[in-house]
């Protein structure tokens, strides 16, 4: 049973991807993707009923895939992978990638052949605790939905681009395989495995970002590759270091105790550093922004359920190992700084996908900050944010993609009044935004826990307070703009492909329902992991000594309010008492949305958000932000190493 599940979750996506690649017919591909998605989702749910569980040691030792020892497959694949990266480095003439690939290869070889005593394994290869389970569920459900969404999306995408030959087979190969790699990564208990999957995600994202093969796509893909290779190298060094310190590659062992030795802290710092690059924490945010050139399903996948989540997963996974150390504090500072810095950067953006990107990084920063704080409440916050962020953010990306197809722009200024053209999508987007920033939804629950648990750390709390305020700004104006249309009386109904609408609806529904279930998610997923219960679950709310959040009562009150408000809206709509907006008394009787201006000519009113570019502009803020972030990284190693 477990074998089968593991096989489905990790290997099946690779096979399905190959299927997509080989069987080029569109119908077949769609079928494969939908079926794989369904199976993955089902498998992850079944896994839920098995956890926590540990893949038996004996089985690990004898584990084979198609008759070959698993360990060996991984080892060989590792080197192959590095070779591929090396190849791309050479092809794109990027010295950093080449150097890093060679470095990793050399270190890998040293580890494999010089350091490790190849005694029979004494620990399980895969351990699935609730953290891993949470990740698996996200990857398999949210990730699959995104893959499904990609089917109609890519069709239209290629239609727009007028390609001579479809590149979709390759695209879906990478896209679907990505899920497998992610599943492997989060369940791995062996650092070597972990490293392998980590690198697979690097390669996959490189391929996906560069998919369109435009000049900018290639450039950004290469940047993503070198930055992530940097993380890969840090990871490799860290692994080697840890092995030389502890003599094991078992993750469970590493995190079973707190480490205080300088050497271990620096090694853990390197792991965190790897996590930072993958999670695009400042100063590495640029690769994830560059990734926005890829088709929207890629962005959605990278942001919500895969890639960057691998980064924070790493940081959260090892949090127990550096809890209560200066390294932890430094990690928290780095995360909080990213939270604030990228939130501020998001303010200066009008490109919807870039806003989503910065917001993702910002939220990841929050997760990292929580991991750094490392108290039970903070870890709870981190896990809850991972869950809710994945759902809401995946949803929002899909919304932006859908709107982009509808209006031909991803600029939030152009999305003004989208409600008039695409009412359903606009409402779903609005719901997505609301679940991102407002109570009683899960993201806010997580933020609340984050703030309350970091209240003990002066710098962190100040940055979180500022950052959370800025976050409200850039979300709310977007949501408001979507609705910005005269009248609101009768709009055309919106028709959409089922494979587009279904993922949107499911994710939207999920975002709401999961938030409602937050108290039980907490007691089911978080408590077993941290083996403590910092919050008491009572009457549908969470309570700790420091505070309380009555999730269910708030939901009920919110529902009542929502009902009344919707009723008022209906009434207003049926009363048909519409009135032109106030325009100083000179609305044009003839031209909608215009007024009679100078020389009696109609002037169409346009409105723009405030981007405060003098302060929050990307060019203005990025250099300072990066400088500060680098300083914080240096501090991190200094703190870790010195104390």
């Amino acid at each position: 049973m477990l074998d089968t599940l593991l096989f489905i979750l990790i290997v099946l996506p690779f096979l399905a991807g190959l299927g997509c690649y080989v069987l080029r017919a569109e119908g077949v591909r769609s079928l494969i993707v939908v079926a794989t998605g369904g199976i993955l989702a089902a498998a992850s749910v079944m896994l839920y009923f098995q956890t926590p569980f540990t893949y038996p040691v004996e089985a690990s030792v004898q584990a084979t895939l198609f008759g070959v020892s698993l360990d060996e497959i991984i080892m060989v694949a590792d080197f192959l992978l590095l070779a591929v990266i090396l190849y791309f480095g050479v092809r794109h003439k990027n010295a950093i990638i080449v150097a890093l690939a060679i470095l990793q290869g050399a270190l890998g070889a040293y580890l494999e052949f010089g350091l490790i005593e190849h005694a029979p394994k004494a620990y399980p290869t895969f351990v699935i605790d609730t953290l891993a389970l949470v990740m698996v569920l996200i990857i398999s459900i949210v990730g699959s939905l995104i893959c499904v969404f990609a089917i109609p999306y890519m069709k239209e995408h290629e239609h727009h681009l007028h390609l001579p030959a479809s590149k979709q087979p390759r695209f879906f190969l990478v896209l679907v395989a990505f899920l497998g790699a992610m599943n492997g990564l989060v369940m791995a208990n062996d650092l070597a495995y972990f490293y392998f999957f980590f690198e697979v995600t690097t390669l996959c994202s490189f391929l996906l970002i560069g998919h369109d093969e435009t000049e900018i796509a290639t450039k950004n893909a290469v940047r993503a590759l070198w930055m992530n290779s940097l993380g890969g190298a840090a990871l490799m060094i860290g692994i080697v270091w840890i092995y030389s310190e502890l003599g094991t590659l078992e993750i469970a062992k590493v995190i079973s105790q707190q480490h205080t030795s300088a050497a271990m802290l620096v090694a853990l710092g390197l792991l965190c550093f790897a996590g930072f690059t993958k999670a695009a924490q400042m100063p590495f945010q640029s690769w994830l922004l560059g990734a926005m050139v890829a088709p929207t399903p890629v962005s959605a996948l990278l942001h919500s359920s895969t890639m960057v989540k691998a980064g924070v997963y790493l940081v959260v996974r090892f949090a127990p190992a550096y809890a209560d150390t200066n390294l932890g504090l430094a990690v928290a500072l780095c995360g909080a700084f990213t939270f604030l810095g990228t939130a501020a950067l998001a303010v200066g953006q009008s490109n919807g996908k870039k806003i989503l990107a910065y917001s993702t990084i910002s939220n990841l920063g929050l997760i990292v900050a929580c991991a750094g704080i490392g108290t039970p409440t903070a870890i709870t916050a981190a896990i809850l944010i991972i869950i809710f962020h994945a759902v809401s953010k995946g949803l929002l990306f899909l919304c932006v993609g859908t709107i982009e197809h509808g209006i031909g722009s991803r600029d939030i200024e152009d999305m003004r009044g989208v409600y008039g053209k695409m009412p359903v999508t606009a409402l779903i987007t609005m719901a997505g935004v609301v679940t991102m920033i407002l109570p009683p939804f899960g993201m806010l629950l997580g933020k609340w826990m984050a703030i309350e648990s970091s209240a003990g750390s002066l710098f962190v709390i100040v940055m979180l307070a500022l950052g959370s305020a800025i976050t409200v700004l850039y979300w709310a104006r977007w949501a408001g703009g979507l609705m910005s249309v005269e009248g609101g009386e009768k709009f055309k109904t919106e028709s959409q492909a089922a494979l587009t609408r279904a993922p949107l609806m499911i994710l939207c529904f999920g975002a709401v329902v999961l938030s409602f279930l937050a108290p039980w998610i907490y007691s089911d997923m978080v408590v077993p992991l941290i083996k403590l219960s910092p919050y008491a679950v009572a009457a549908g709310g969470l309570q700790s000594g420091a505070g309380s959040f009555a999730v269910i009562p708030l939901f009920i009150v919110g529902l009542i309010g929502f009902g009344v408000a919707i009723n008022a809206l209906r009434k207003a709509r049926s009363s048909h008492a519409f009135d032109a907006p106030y325009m100083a008394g000179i609305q044009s009787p003839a031209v909608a949305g215009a007024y009679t201006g100078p020389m009696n000519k109609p002037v169409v009113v346009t409105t723009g958000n405030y981007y405060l570019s003098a302060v929050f502009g990307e060019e203005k803020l990025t250099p300072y932000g990066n400088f500060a972030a680098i300083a914080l990284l240096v501090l991190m190693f200094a703190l870790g190493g010195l104390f």
Partner: protein
Amino acid sequence: MQAFEIGLNPATFGWLLVGLLVAPVAGGLIAGVDRILTAKCQSRVGPPLLQPFYDAAKLWGKETKVSNVWIAFCSWMYFTAAATSCVMFFLQSDLLIIFFVQAVGAVFLVIGALSVPSPYSQIGGQRELLQIMAYEPLLILVFVGIFLATGSFNISAVYAMDKPLMLESGVVPMVLLFVVLGYALTIKLRKSPFDISGSHHAHQEIVRGVFTEYSGRYLALVEVAHWYEVVLVLGVVALFWATSWYAIVILLVLTYAAEILVDNITARLSWRAMLGKLWASGLALSFVSLAWLYAF
């Protein structure tokens, strides 16, 4: 939050009613007194005490005309959120959550304003967001200060103490935090110099800013919601000396008098100046006081 005790515990139920029913009445009366005092400061007579209620009732009875039906939706959401946050305050819930619930209202107020493509309402909405951005961190930091003093974000923890909050953990940091709270209070009361996104008065370059497109009963809802919010913020003020009713009353009167005075002796600042001032001095003050609280 003890909401689950409703019905079991008469005291809780009583407080719920206070929050739901007495608070808006009190808020309206405060607004009435405010207008009379302001008029007196200007050597005028001012309106009757019940004027805010007349205003709201009149608005409720006006013809409903909107440019976008979302105005109707958003005004109700604003109202619900404001009332909920106020009730939660009287139920001694978690300060942060109360505040986040209140933010729901603020956000919907803005979304409503932004839902109409009128430049004035749009600019008002944008400015309102900037104001939220200006005061939100300050309030959070004030709450953190309270947490540091009491060990909890729950309001009940404040009442559980036997010393007034202002004197807990040293007077200086708490007084500084109180000043920071004053900044936020000025914004929330929409008083000069921070009445930027939509003042109570009309003579503003953006007409009535964020309220421009709310009219009739939707504006009435917004007004009443504002009363809830005023009571809520004043409630937070009262926490600083909550050991006796006399002290609460004195503190509130003094604070509100100071607000009226400031309103009458200052010009309205531009939002750039506001952001600069609040972030520079507000954050500095709260940082100093929090650092002080950490140190001792």
